[in-house]
């Protein structure tokens, strides 16, 4: 019985991380609305360029090196190497007449980051930089 159980556990362990292409491409298991909420924040500013520049400096403060930046698309992609590879894309777009929406999504090694805590930490860091910028402190 124990042998069967252990074989079963090992079989699940070995097959547990194998996803087919469709699952991997679409991440069908994730709750789309919930993921958006976790990854997005609104900021009371309409200055897209300044916000993107603040996103870049925040990412640098967090140890990232920028991979790509596009003002028109409002998108920044960066990678942090610290014994691991953490890749992050941040997009900035208008939410309404007075606000911008900042959305971040991260990939740690070979998995999407869906835990809310790292995003909270990121937006907390970004908020501090936005505040510093607003207060003319570099």
């Amino acid at each position, binding site marked *: 019985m*124990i042998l069967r159980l252990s074989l079963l556990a090992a079989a699940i362990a070995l097959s547990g991380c194998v996803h087919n292409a469709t699952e991997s491409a679409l991440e069908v298991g994730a709750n789309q609305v919930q993921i958006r909420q976790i990854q997005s924040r609104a900021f009371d500013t309409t200055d897209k360029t300044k916000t993107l520049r603040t996103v870049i400096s925040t990412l640098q403060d*967090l140890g990232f090196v920028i991979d790509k930046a596009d003002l028109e698309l409002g998108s920044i992609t960066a990678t942090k190497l610290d014994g691991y590879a953490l890749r992050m894309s941040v997009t900035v777009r208008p939410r309404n007449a007075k606000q911008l929406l900042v959305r971040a999504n991260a990939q740690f090694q070979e998995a999407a980051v869906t835990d809310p805590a790292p995003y909270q930490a990121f937006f907390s860091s970004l908020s501090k930089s936005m505040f510093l910028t607003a207060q003319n402190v570099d």
Partner: protein
Amino acid sequence: MRLLSLCGLALLVVGCQTGIPEDALALKPDSLERRQLESRRFAGGKEVDILAACSGVSQDMGFTTDESETKLGVLVASKTREASNAGSRFAMALLVGGNAANSMDKSQKIRLCIVVKPVAGKEGQEWVVRATFQRMVWNSYGQLTRLEGLSEPELYQQFFEKLSKSVFLEAQKI
């Protein structure tokens, strides 16, 4: 047998764990210190001229440009080089044994990102240039052995010395 089932269970538990470090996206106490190390303030000129000077310096150091977005003051470049020289491999082989040389680091890709940003309150007059380096190292089996940001102060000092010469401006430590 019990051990075997425990092992199976342990595999099951750790099988899909992603394990992002808790502080990976949080500011650390040394964030300000790193910012100072990686940044210098320049006065005069236009932002695009400073960025062009940065591009020149990166070319001087053998980097090739991967990406640039002038409107955001971003320049990204990289280079691939040998990770260790023949002399150190030979010395390591003598010390540790014949196969040691094979397992040593073979090649490395160094990435450089330079960001030019107007100084708050002095837009159009003063700029902060921040450079960040990181590298990936592979051994002779093609395995990735190191993923790290570079924080040696000499690296940044020398980079900014070259940049200062390049823009003919006096760099001010911030």
